[in-house]
């Protein structure tokens, strides 16, 4: 009897083992030899298929304020002009054939191209252009991108500060020309950059009105002002632009399919279809790329190594993105913040105004191991920075002074801090990061480790927290140090200096840090309004030096991107300001050779 039982026992054991082994290919088959190089088959002729992560909020040019939407919009719509190839400060005509600046009355005049058709058949007229901008300013959804237009045209930041007359007057039609009146001469150049954003896209006036958008009259404009939800604007998932591709279908959460527009005014689109599928899982995306089902996929930086030595994949490296992550010190924390220990300088915590001491900030800046961060977190794909003005922006200073990993310097600063008291007593506080962001965790750990190296008594604990919570604490100055990133709206130093240094509402970070002061604000304004390019650069360099000296935040690394296409995709070039990662599809092509 017992013999039987044990026999069954063995059988069961065997069965179990076999099963787990079957399910664990790794154990049974230690990396059996496959041919090292793989062939990616040529699929989907005439289609550009990309698999990416983010889905647009809305395809309405006036609403959209994120890259996923911006990318689609730039395929469907067109603006008056566009950047010249890789350059971010020279332009080529698109819907405007020529443009001239008038210093006297601060106007930009654009001659509108004729013979341009909209997807739904309408013809492009100067009225359409006027309507497009006025519609955008009338809509001005809260938190939207239109503040840029208001800044440039009316010197204010939202429609609440102006009357309809102002909006109406900002853009006027003059024969074949459209005239924009700017708020200041210094906007002459930035305005052109602003026009290239998706918010500068031209829509079809008649079609929009016919479909129930703003009729263009004063009495109705308040009804179309500050729409609450994406679906409140008809251009949300319905589109009618002049671009090379027209919207075929947007299956929310699944894919967006763009179809070639045959009546395009310029040279025809290189792809019959542009298909953007949303695939969250990296493994799935990678396998799709290798199977040739996708021509381009989003590749998280951590995983680039897996693709590096595949011949059939074309790689483009060292593409500086107009983006920077940084640690920001909060100068004046709330008294009852749970992350500052005892709330006093007694070794069991930190006082709320801990980081208002410049030596503390500099100490931290020197205690951070930039090289390791670059090596491990970014796999060398980054550039060190001294200031918020990153490479690729107008006003970037290649040899701005930078912080380095230097524990001795860190030590001397931290010894000075708080009259030496800090060094004696030590400190304890919590460093938070938004859960899921591995790189920011790594950065936090590096900082904590560095400080601990300088002085055993510096105890920094690290804690993840949901993004919502994080923002909440950020806004209520509850975070001793917060780590967030910033991406350009348009490639101009001002677009970075203001959020990092301005003490007003424009200072996205400095405002919540409690950094910034009137003189500085004045300097920023002066730099922006300076008309002489030489002078302007000098002023921006000065601002960057100030940021380095006062060290209100420690810039991590300017991330440098890569692109991976199947070898069948040709013609990629890099322009950092183009939204989305797929690149300038209109200049690219797909062929089997």
């Amino acid at each position, binding site marked *: 009897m017992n013999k039987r039982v044990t*026999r*069954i026992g063995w*059988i*069961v054991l065997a*069965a*179990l083992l076999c*099963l*787990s082994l079957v*399910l664990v*290919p790794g154990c049974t088959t230690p990396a059996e030899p496959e041919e090292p190089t*793989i062939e990616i088959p040529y699929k*989907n002729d005439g*289609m550009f*298929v990309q698999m990416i992560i983010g*889905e*647009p*909020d*809305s395809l309405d040019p006036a609403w959209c*304020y*994120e890259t996923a939407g911006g990318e689609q919009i730039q395929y469907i719509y067109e603006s008056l002009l566009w950047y010249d190839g890789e350059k971010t400060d020279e332009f080529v005509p698109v819907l405007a054939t020529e443009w001239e600046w008038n210093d006297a009355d601060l106007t930009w005049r654009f001659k509108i191209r004729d013979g341009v058709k909209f997807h739904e058949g309408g013809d492009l007229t100067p009225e359409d252009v006027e309507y497009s901008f006025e519609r955008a300013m009338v809509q001005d959804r*809260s*938190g939207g*991108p239109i*503040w840029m237009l208001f800044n440039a045209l009316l010197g204010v930041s939202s429609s609440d500060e102006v009357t309809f007359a102002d909006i109406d007057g900002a853009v006027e039609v003059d024969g074949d020309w459209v005239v924009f009146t700017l708020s200041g001469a210094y906007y002459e150049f930035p305005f052109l950059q602003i026009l290239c954003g998706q918010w500068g896209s031209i829509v079809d006036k008649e079609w929009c009105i016919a479909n129930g958008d703003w009729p263009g009259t004063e009495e109705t404009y308040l009804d179309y002002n500050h729409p*609450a939800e*994406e*679906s409140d604007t008809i251009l949300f*998932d319905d589109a009618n632009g002049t671009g090379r591709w027209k919207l*075929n279908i947007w*299956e*929310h*959460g*699944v*894919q967006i*399919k763009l179809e070639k527009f045959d009546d395009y005014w310029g040279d025809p689109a290189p792809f019959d*279809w542009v298909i953007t*599928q949303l*695939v*969250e*899982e990296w*493994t*799935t995306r990678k*396998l799709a790329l*290798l*199977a*040739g*089902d996708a021509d381009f996929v989003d590749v998280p930086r951590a995983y680039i190594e897996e693709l590096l030595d595949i011949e059939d994949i074309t790689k483009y490296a060292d593409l500086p993105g107009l983006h920077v992550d940084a640690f920001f010190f909060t100068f004046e924390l709330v008294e009852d913040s749970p992350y500052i220990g005892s709330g006093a300088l007694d070794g069991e915590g930190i006082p709320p105004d801990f980081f208002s001491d410049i030596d503390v900030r500099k100490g931290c800046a020197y205690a951070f191991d930039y090289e390791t961060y670059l090596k491990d977190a970014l796999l060398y794909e980054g550039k060190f920075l001294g200031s918020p003005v990153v490479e690729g922006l107008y006003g970037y200073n290649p040899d701005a002074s930078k912080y380095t990993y230097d524990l001795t310097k860190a030590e001397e600063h931290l010894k000075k801090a708080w009259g030496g008291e800090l060094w004696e007593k030590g400190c304890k506080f919590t460093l938070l990061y938004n859960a899921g962001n591995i790189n920011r965790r790594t950065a936090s750990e590096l900082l904590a480790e560095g400080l601990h190296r300088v002085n055993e008594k510096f105890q920094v604990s690290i804690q993840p927290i*949901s*993004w*919502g*919570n994080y*923002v*909440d604490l950020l*806004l*209520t100055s509850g975070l001793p140090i917060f780590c*967030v990133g*910033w991406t350009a709206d348009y490639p101009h130093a001002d677009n970075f200096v203001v*959020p990092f240094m301005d003490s007003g*509402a424009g200072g*996205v970070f400095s405002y919540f840090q409690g950094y910034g002061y009137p003189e500085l604000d004045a300097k920023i304004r002066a730099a922006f309004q300076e008309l002489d390019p030489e002078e302007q650069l000098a002023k921006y360099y000065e601002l960057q030096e100030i940021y380095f000296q006062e060290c209100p935040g420690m810039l991590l690394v300017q991330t440098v991107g890569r692109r991976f296409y199947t070898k069948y995709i040709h013609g990629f070039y890099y322009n950092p300001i183009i939204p989305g990662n797929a690149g300038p599809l209109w200049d690219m092509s797909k062929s089997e050779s």
Partner: protein
Amino acid sequence: MELRAYIIRRLLLLIPVLLGVTLFIFGITMFFSPIQRATLYVTNLRQLANLPAIIEQYGLDQPLVVQYGTWLGQVLRGNLGWSNVANMPVSEAIWHFLPATLELAIFATPLIILIGIFLGSTAAAHKDSPVDHGTRVVAIVGWSLPTFWLGLILLMVFYGYFRGFLPPSRLSIQMDMVVNSAEFIRYTHINTIDAILNLNGPVFLDALRHIILPVITLSIVNVAFIMRLMRSSMLESLGKGYILTARAKGLAEKVVVNKHARRNALIPVITVSGYLFAALANGVVITETIFNYKGIGWWAWQSAFRLDIASVLGFALFNAVLFVLVNLVVDILYTRVDPRVRLGGSVQ
């Protein structure tokens, strides 16, 4: 008429449940400060300055009761609110994502039940023999597997090794073109069924190819649930007197097991197949994510993850209704299988 009365009674019972579910979820949301919930609407850091406006706009700072009241009012007016995840009204989102999940269920559920019943009765028929232990261990191992792990490994083998053999997502690009073209009528948005209705072989095969892996994953993980139940209830009925009678009649063992024992053993299995539905509702969340098979589970996950409360609430309502209906059907089915049961009553 007893039937109608019964159905009505059950549906009336649904109302308090729905109220409870939604109220509970609303309670959860009260864990957040208004700002936290407002961040859902932030796509660009510049909007941080606008958070108060957003809070104002969505009335996020209102007390629980007020928010619930307004929401309920909207619901009664047939408006479930805006799903930020799906980028469309919640009510639309449900119908937008349902077909995919339905397709999974249509294939997975029968598979799970049949395999489960088969394994269960086999194991029972050979109680304590190696066969028994074998089947049980297999089933239990499957049950102990982390879904995501299994799914990704299957993906690795059938999409990675045999390159592109069983791909993720619902359709290949070409077939997607066909499906979205004018001459293909999407009656149900359930690709396989539509393909049949359109008499379109390629699409059908393609859809089939895409659905195999997720279905297998779901089945492997859930089959033990039915299997162990079937086994024990089979053992139970095999121990009953009428089995001895049947044998004493001279019936062949096969007939005894398959006719007399199984018919009785099925009864409890039917009762729980309602819960199998719940089990699947959990299973699809991960399965759909991994196989990029965008269905209602994926949507629900994203919503819960990004605290898109409107969506979560909508999903909750939908799911609760579905759950109750399924159980209702099960109960009615029950009376057909077991002559002893009357609606509303129970077996013994």
